[in-house]
C-alpha cells in the first residue's frame, strides 16, 4: 500500500503490489517496468497514475494504444513541433495500472534551438489549418480502409488451396500470412496514432493560451466559461447521434417501419422483419449507408476491447432509434439544437469581450480567441476518427485472430487474445504456424496459453479492488508539458491534494471529490453508478449518474438525469458539452467517482465549483 509519510510519495521502486497480483510483470513489455538500470532517473521524476487513459486494470494487448501515444505524443513535442521547454511523457506499469511522467525541461541551449523551430513550424500549421485538416482526414480514412481491407487467415487449411499452387505457386502461405497480417495490423495502429497527434499538441497549447489570456482579463473566470467560449457544436463525435435522429425521422415517413422499430425486440428480429417490406428495405439501406463510419463508435472511451462498439452491438443503436421514434410520435424534438450551441458560444464570447475595458486588450482577446478557434476543431474531430472508428476496425480484426486461435484449440475464448501483449501474439501465431507446417498430430501448447489467459484475467479482476498511490517519486518544481496541464490538470493544487490523500485511500473515507466544473448548477440527490453502458436500463429518471466517461452512445440518458459525474473528461468532453446543452449540472474528470461513490448514496453535485460531496452513504 501507499507510503503514509506526509508530503512524500513512495519511491517507484518500492511500491508493494498486493500478492493476488503476483505475476503481473509478465503481462507487459519489460521496458514498461520500473527498473534498476534507470533507477536513479526514475526515482528523481514525478509519476502519477493516468486515470484518463488507464482508469481500469490494463489488459495486455490494450496497452498497445498507450505504447503508441507515448511515442507519438512525445515526439511532436520534442522533435516535430518543438514546444521549447517541454519534453515528452513517459509511461510505466505498476501492477496493472499505468503511471505517467511529464519529463523535466531540457537544458537551456535545447530550449533556444527548439524555440526557433517552433516559430517556423507551428505558425505555419495555424496559417494553413483548414487545408491541413482536409489532408489529414483523407490520409486517415485511407489508413482505416487499408486496415479494413487487411486479410487475416480464416483457417489453417488441411492442404493449401489449388489456386495457390497452380499454375504458379504463390510462394508464401498461411504460415507466413498469419505473421505478416498481424505485423501489418500492429503497424497500421501505430501509424494511426502517429497521425492522431499531428495537430493535437498545438490544439492544447492554443487552448491553454486562450485560458491564460482570459484569466489575465478576468482573474476569476471559470474553466467551464473558457470551455464554453472554445467548444464547437458541429463536431464529428456528435454525428452518430445525428444519424440516429435522421433514421428515426425517415422511419416515421416510411409505411410501417416505425411500428417495427418500436417493438420490444432485439435488432436481429427487427432487421428480419424490415427485410420483408420494400419500405423496410429502403430504411435498412439508409441504415447501412450511415453505419460506416458513423456507427463505428465505441460504447466507452474506445481504449478497451471489452467496451464494444455499436456495429457489434446493434441492439444499442436500435434501442435508441426506438426511443427517438416514440419521442417523435409524441411531437417532441429529438435533434440537438446545434445552431443554438454555436450561437450561445458566440454570445458568451461577445459578452466577455464587452467587459474588457481597454481597446488593446480587446484586440488581444480577439486574436487569442481566433487562434484557438482556428485549430480547436482538431481536438473535437480527431477523436471520432481515431479512438472510435479506427479502434473499432482494430478490435474486429484482432478478434479474427482470436477466432482462429480458438478454432485451433489454443485459446478458450475469442477475447482471450487481449490477455497477451503485442509481442507475445506473434509467438503464439508462430507456434500455430509451426505446428501446422510440421504436419498432422503435432502437439501444441494450447493448455499453456489457456492457463496463462485465465491467470491474467484473475490478476486484472483482483487489481480492480486495489487503489494504488495516486503518485510516485518527487514532485517537480515546474511543469511545461501542455497535455499534463490540460488533460490531467496537474497543477500545484492537484499535487497538494494528492499529497493530502496519501495513506487515506480507502473508498469509504472519501467524502469529497474534485473535478472539472463543466456544467453549472447545484443539485442534491441519489446516485446511480453505471460502469458500463448496458447498465443504463437500471437508471431511473431523476437520478444522478456516475460513470467512467460518456460518448454519443450515452446520449439518451441526458434527458433523464438530474446531474452527471464522470471519472474521465475535461470541459470539452462529451458529458460536459451535452450537460451544458440540457442545463444539467455536471462535474467531470473526478478520477475516482465510480470507485468511491456507490449506487444509492446521496451526493451534492456543484457544477459551479467542480465539487462533489457525498452527503449520505447508502
Amino acid at each position, binding site marked *: 500500500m501507499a507510503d503514509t509519510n506526509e508530503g512524500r510519495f513512495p519511491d517507484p521502486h518500492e511500491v508493494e503490489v498486493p500478492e493476488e497480483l503476483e505475476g503481473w510483470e509478465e503481462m507487459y513489455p519489460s521496458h514498461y517496468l520500473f527498473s534498476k538500470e534507470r533507477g536513479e532517473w526514475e526515482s528523481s521524476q514525478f509519476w502519477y497514475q493516468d486515470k484518463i487513459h488507464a482508469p481500469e486494470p490494463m489488459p495486455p494487448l490494450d496497452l498497445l494504444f498507450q505504447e503508441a501515444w507515448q511515442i507519438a505524443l512525445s515526439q511532436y513535442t520534442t522533435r516535430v513541433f518543438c514546444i521549447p521547454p517541454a519534453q515528452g511523457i513517459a509511461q510505466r506499469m505498476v501492477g496493472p495500472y499505468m503511471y505517467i511522467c511529464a519529463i523535466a525541461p531540457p537544458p537551456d541551449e535545447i530550449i533556444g534551438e527548439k524555440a526557433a523551430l517552433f516559430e517556423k513550424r507551428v505558425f505555419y500549421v495555424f496559417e494553413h489549418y483548414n487545408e491541413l485538416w482536409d489532408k489529414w482526414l483523407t490520409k486517415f480514412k485511407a489508413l482505416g480502409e487499408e486496415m479494413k481491407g487487411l486479410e487475416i487467415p480464416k483457417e489453417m487449411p488441411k492442404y493449401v488451396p489449388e489456386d495457390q499452387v497452380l499454375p504458379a505457386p504463390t510462394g508464401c502461405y498461411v504460415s507466413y500470412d498469419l505473421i505478416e497480417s498481424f505485423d501489418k495490423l500492429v503497424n497500421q495502429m501505430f501509424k494511426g496514432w502517429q497521425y492522431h497527434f499531428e495537430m493535437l499538441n498545438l490544439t492544447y497549447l492554443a487552448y491553454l493560451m486562450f485560458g491564460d489570456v482570459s484569466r489575465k482579463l478576468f482573474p476569476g473566470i471559470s474553466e467551464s*466559461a473558457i470551455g464554453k467560449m472554445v467548444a464547437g457544436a458541429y463536431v464529428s463525435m456528435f454525428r452518430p447521434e445525428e444519424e440516429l435522429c435522421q433514421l428515426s425521422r425517415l422511419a416515421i415517413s416510411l409505411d410501417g417501419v416505425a411500428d417495427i422499430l418500436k417493438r420490444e425486440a432485439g435488432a436481429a428480429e427487427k432487421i428480419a422483419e424490415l427485410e420483408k417490406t420494400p419500405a423496410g428495405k429502403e430504411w435498412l439501406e439508409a441504415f447501412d449507408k450511415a453505419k460506416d463510419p458513423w456507427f463505428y463508435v465505441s460504447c466507452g472511451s474506445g481504449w478497451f476491447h471489452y467496451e464494444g462498439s455499436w456495429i457489434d452491438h446493434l441492439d444499442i443503436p436500435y434501442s435508441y432509434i426506438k426511443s427517438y421514434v416514440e419521442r417523435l410520435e409524441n411531437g417532441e424534438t429529438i435533434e440537438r439544437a446545434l445552431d443554438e450551441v454555436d450561437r450561445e458560444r458566440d454570445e458568451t464570447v461577445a459578452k*466577455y469581450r464587452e467587459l474588457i475595458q481597454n481597446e488593446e486588450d480587446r484586440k488581444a482577446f480577439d486574436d487569442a480567441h481566433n487562434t484557438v478557434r482556428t485549430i480547436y476543431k482538431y481536438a473535437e474531430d480527431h477523436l471520432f476518427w481515431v479512438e472510435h472508428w479506427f479502434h473499432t476496425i482494430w478490435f474486429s480484426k484482432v478478434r479474427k485472430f482470436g477466432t482462429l486461435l480458438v478454432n485451433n484449440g489454443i485459446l478458450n475464448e475469442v477475447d482471450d487474445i487481449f490477455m497477451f501483449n503485442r509481442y507475445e501474439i506473434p509467438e503464439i501465431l508462430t507456434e500455430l504456424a509451426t505446428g501446422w507446417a510440421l504436419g498432422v498430430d503435432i502437439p501444441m501448447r494450447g493448455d499453456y496459453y489457456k492457463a496463462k489467459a485465465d491467470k491474467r484475467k484473475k490478476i486484472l479482476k483482483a487489481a480492480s479492488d486495489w487503489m494504488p498511490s495516486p503518485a510516485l517519486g518527487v514532485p517537480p518544481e515546474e511543469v511545461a508539458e501542455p497535455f499534463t*496541464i490540460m488533460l490531467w490538470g496537474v497543477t500545484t493544487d492537484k499535487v497538494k491534494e494528492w499529497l493530502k490523500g496519501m495513506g487515506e485511500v480507502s473508498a469509504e473515507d472519501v467524502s469529497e471529490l474534485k473535478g472539472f466544473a463543466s456544467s453549472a448548477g447545484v443539485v442534491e440527490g441519489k446516485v446511480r453508478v453505471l460502469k458500463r453502458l448496458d447498465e443504463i436500463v437500471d437508471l431511473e429518471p431523476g437520478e444522478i449518474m456516475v460513470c467512467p466517461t460518456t460518448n454519443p452512445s450515452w446520449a439518451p440518458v441526458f434527458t433523464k438525469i438530474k446531474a452527471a459525474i464522470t471519472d474521465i473528461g475535461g470541459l470539452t468532453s462529451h458529458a460536459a458539452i451535452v450537460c451544458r446543452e440540457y442545463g444539467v449540472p455536471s462535474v467531470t474528470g473526478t478520477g475516482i467517482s465510480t470507485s468511491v461513490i456507490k449506487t444509492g448514496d446521496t451526493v451534492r453535485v456543484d457544477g459551479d465549483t467542480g465539487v462533489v460531496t457525498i452527503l449520505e452513504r447508502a
Partner: protein
Amino acid sequence: MEYILHFEVLDKTSLPRVGGKNASLGEMIKAGIRVPPGFAVTTDSYLNFITETGIKDKIYEILSNLKPDDVDALNSASSQIQGLINSTSMNDQVKSAIEKAYLELCGKCAVKDVPVAVRSSATAEDLPTASFAGQQDTYLWVVGTEDILSSVRKCWASLYTPRAIDYRNKNNFPHEKVLISVGVQKMVNSRSAGVMFTLNPTNGDPSKVVIEGSWGLGETVVSGSVNPDKFVVDKVVMETSERTISVKHIQCVHDPVGGEVINVDVEEDMQSKCCLEDEEIKELVRIAKGIETHYGRAMDIEWAVDRDFSYPESIFIVQARPETVWSQRKKGPLIGKKSGYQLLMEQAMKRIKIPG
C-alpha cells in the same frame, strides 16, 4: 398644481419640481432598478404652503433686513424663519394630498402606518448642494400622517439654515427663486440586506458581481460588525464561483419602541443559514448588471430584501454610487498589443511552478 408625484412618473425633466434626489430615483426606476416605493412632495406644495398660510411675506421680510457679515443677525433670522415654518400648520390642500399619498403607499405595502424615510431634495443642482440647501435633512422611521407632515416642514425649513441663507446672499441668488421638494419613501422592512459590487473588489475582475449580505438591516454589513455571507457570481455565464455562508450572530433591526435601530441576537437556527435564496441572488446580479450599464461604470450598491413584498418585488436598491478603488487605478492594458502567435509563443515558453 401637482402637490404630489409618485416616483414612477419622475425623470430628469422633473428636477425643477421634485429636486435632484427624487428625480434620480425616478431615473433609476425607468432603468429597471427597483427602489423602495414612495412619492415626492413637489415644490408646488412648498410654494402653496408658504403662500396660503401667509408666511411667505414674513420670511422674505426677515431676509431683506439682513446685513452682510452680521453673524448674530443671520443666526437669529434663520431660527425665526425655521420656527415659523415648523410651527405653522399645513394648509388643507397640501395636507390632504400628502395624507392621500401616504395612505396609498400603506395600501400598496399592505402595512398600516408604514414607516417611511422623509428627505429633502434640492432643486438647484447647478450650485454646490451642501452649501446651498443647507443640511439635506433626512428623517428615518417616520410613522403616521402627523409625523410625516412635521418632518416635511422640517425639510422645508432646512432651506433656511444660516449657512444656506448666507451663501445665497453672498452669491446674489434671490431667495424667492429657491425652492425645495421632499421625498417620502418606504423604509425597507429588511429581512436581509447588504452591499454588492459590479466587479470583484479583491482582484478587480470585471466579469464578476460580488454580493455580501446578512440578516436584518444593511448596517451590520456596511460597518463590518458581522461576517457576511458572500457570493461571487459570473455576469456572463451566471455561475456562482464562491459561496461563503458565515455565522451571523447579530442583526440590526428597527426598534419601534425606542424609535431607533439596534443590534439584536440572531436566533440560533438562523445564524448559519444563507441569508439569500438562489433566485434572489440571481435577481441581485441582474439588477447589478443593469445599474452598471445605466451608469456606464463599476458601481458599489446597497440592497435589501423587504419582508412586506414577495419575490421579485421584494428586492430593493437602497443606494448606488461609483466604485472608487479599482476605477481610479491607472487603466493600462493587461495584455497589450500582442498577436495570437505572440501569445502562443509566450504560452509555449511557459513553465508552471510547482513548489515541492
